[in-house]
């Protein structure tokens, strides 16, 4: 199959690329656009390390084809901070030592941000079920859940 040209928006920037129709959005983000923050842990949509949003919807980018990005707005972990200012979730992940190796962190951040955009007052159970698609093998999730709770509290205070 011949390569296809795609125009899309990634973290607010207009982006064009050419890809094989078999390439996933994750392949394209990493290998064509150079955004390696999204990780491939499984390639089957089970681990969530490749989580991004497409037009605001949380997806595993390993389950989306690159060509499907045409005309869409993609947000990745690289777009969460505003310049030098970290997002409160990023701050809380660091403060709470909610990462050890850090490979799951980009996906956790993208997924948790998506949750807090919908609900700034999630219960512990809601956080745990929302993040159930994001595997972390290092932390046992305790500190991750606490970091998300702390970020939510800050967001509520900021109102």
């Amino acid at each position, binding site marked *: 199959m011949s390569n296809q040209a795609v125009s899309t928006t990634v973290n607010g920037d207009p982006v064009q690329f050419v890809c*094989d129709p*078999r*390439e996933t959005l994750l*392949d394209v983000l*990493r*290998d064509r656009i150079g*955004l*390696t*923050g*999204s*990780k*491939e*842990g*499984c*390639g*089957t949509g*089970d*681990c969530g*390390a490749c989580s991004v949003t497409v037009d605001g919807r949380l997806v595993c980018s390993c389950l989306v084809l690159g060509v499907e990005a045409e005309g869409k707005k993609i947000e990745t*972990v*690289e777009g*969460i*901070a505003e310049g030098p200012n*970290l997002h409160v979730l*990023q701050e809380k*992940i*660091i*403060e*709470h*030592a909610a*990462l*050890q*190796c*850090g*490979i*799951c*962190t*980009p996906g956790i*951040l993208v997924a948790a941000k998506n949750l807090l955009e919908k609900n700034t007052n999630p219960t*512990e*159970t809601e*956080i*745990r*079920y929302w*993040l*159930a*698609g*994001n*595997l*972390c*093998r*290092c*932390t*046992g*999730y*305790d*500190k*991750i*859940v*606490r970091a998300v709770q702390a970020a939510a509290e800050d967001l509520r205070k900021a109102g």
Partner: protein
Amino acid sequence: MAFDTQTEKQFKYIGTRPKRQDGVDKVTGHALYGADTYKAGMLHGAIVRSPHAHARIIKIDTSKAEALDGVKAVVTRADFATGLTGENWNILENIMADKTALYDGHAIAAIAATSNLIARDAVKLVEVEYEILPHVTDIKEAISEGAPIIRESSIEANVPPDHHKNITRRFECGKGDVDVGFAEADLIVERDFTTEAAHQGYIEPHACLAHMTADGKGELWCTTQGHYNVQRICAALLGMETSQLRVTASEIGGGFGAKTTVFIDPVALALSRKANRPVKMVMTRSEVLRATGPASSSWSTVKVGMKKDGTITAAQATYRLQGGAFPSAPSESPAQVTFAPYDIEHAEMVGLSVMTNRPKQAAFRAPGAPMGVFASEQVLDEMAQELGIDPIELRLKNAAKEGTRGVHGPTFKRIGLIETLEAAKAHPHYSIPLKENQGRGVACGFWFNFGGSTSVSMALSEDGSVALSIGTPDIGGSRASMALMAAEVLGIPYEDIRVTVADTASLGYNDNTHGSRVTYAVGLATIEACRSAVKEMCKRAALKWGIDEEAVSWEDGYAKPSGPNAGDFEPLPLKAIASEMTKTGGPINGHFEASPNTAGPGFATHLVDVEVDPETGKTTVLRYTVVMDAGKAIHPDYVEGQMQGGAVQGIGWALNEEYVYGKDGRLQNTVFLDYRVPVASDLPMIDCVIIEVPNPGHPFGVRGVGETSIVPPLGAVANAVSNATGVRQTDLPMSPPRVLKGILEKQKANG
């Protein structure tokens, strides 16, 4: 390096919880892991794997693959060194089959092409002719009559001839006379237990970028727990000089032991050598599960004798560990570890390593210990119940302490087992009432901990900031711990120290990040490297003041005149000494190299409450408390992280995780959907209690904490499920169908 009592009460930085220095890189997606680098002209590598569990390789025809547009190189075993022996031969045999495919997923050939898609297309074009051989994947079947013999030449000399030919190693340890011990017992219990293989399950698959150039030099970027080890093994397998290969460790996305060896790195180097271009290789998750090492599966037999008051009179056990088609299953570990927490006069332990047609087992956090403890801690639990003794009291009654000679041989110095038991007993968790279908489990665990060869170097900058170079990949926040220890010795802020994991050409040899050794051994080396720089700084101050260097002391970042000169001169801060260093004698650096062997043993007690649904057999973990002796917690957040992470990996191993092989010898659960590690919604918060009984062999008292945390949970969860259901859980995983079967059988037996 003895414990430095003077520092005990004066810590300024140790024990605080500053932000890790690689935090921003890791929350913004900029940290570079194994698969995150690229080189101009880079090719992509992919591996042809055996679909058979055991087969003779008759012919490999790569002509169609080589004819595909974009394919630049194909390698087979013929492209690697010959004449290797010992573990180097085993590793080569595992990463690229020679005459026989030994397990489903065994590498047969590899291809480098201009894209990943072309490389994977080309894999499908390689035609391999196999003669299928009989196989065995189950540990009990492997040592039964009629099982195919995997490799008789691997049997070690001390294995008696009457043992099955798939038993390659026999290890024994113990003390006293178990016959005497059992004769003294009022109660004897003997049980059999099995556990399945569990994968380390790091989220980052193995990945590397290799570049061999025409002059015979090589560069390798890879995700690893030890780049010096990668360098040594790859050089041997490629037949090159070690120093001609420079290895740089990427950020590492989890390892838990399995990234202490190599799988694809030598293959990528061989492809690069042949194609004369850089080659990147990244494993898929299926490849990780099929062809990298999980922990051993096991079959244990444990017999314990006890007096009515709970005193253990004898312990006897045989631990059989399956390590795949290679002779390396760590069967000596459960033999040494499982009864080490207890003061037992008569003990006899045997470990047997068993070969099957499975991938070569790899280290997984306290290798061999969790499955042994699953067995021993359950027998103790059953006996405590039989005798009507509280399970913590039973353990306290027999607990090892300073001066106890362990069943594995050594006599313990200062250890903290009793402190963990007392803290668990006093914890509110232990007195929460349980409801119907709920059960509580207690288990203790021990791990040796390790020192290992270590080199550390620090360099002072003219502005007074410090660069610290270590050679152990940072897998869980160790750069933060090193910076804290350096800050403590130098007396400068944590933020003024930048810690880098140096490549193999920039720092002397370091053993892997393994054996719970980094905070202990690399920490010790960091302290000593900084102390050597402090000595030099004192010398420079002495020179300036015209006094003896012995008359200068170092306090909180300042050189101060002491003794008869006390108060004679204004103290000199580190920054002032640094700014003048090039004029006062040259650069000021510190370094330290050693192989410290004073690691303090680690002990832990775990408490867990579960609820088992009697209709489905599903277990829910209600609450979990980890009590562990850390010696001295340098950065308590990351100590807790080790405690929580180890406990949760143990919960997964106990309840969900297993390798499922079909009758055809093929692995049936090769994706995370089917190999189910714990997810956030499976778990409660994991409570931590850090106990600090200083290790007498470290200046600040540090004990390793990475591995002990996974030793008790299999036994603790099994005790909890057994107590919730009234059915002793002898086999892992305690999946809902298995637990339900036990419940139904019990109901039937009770009428």
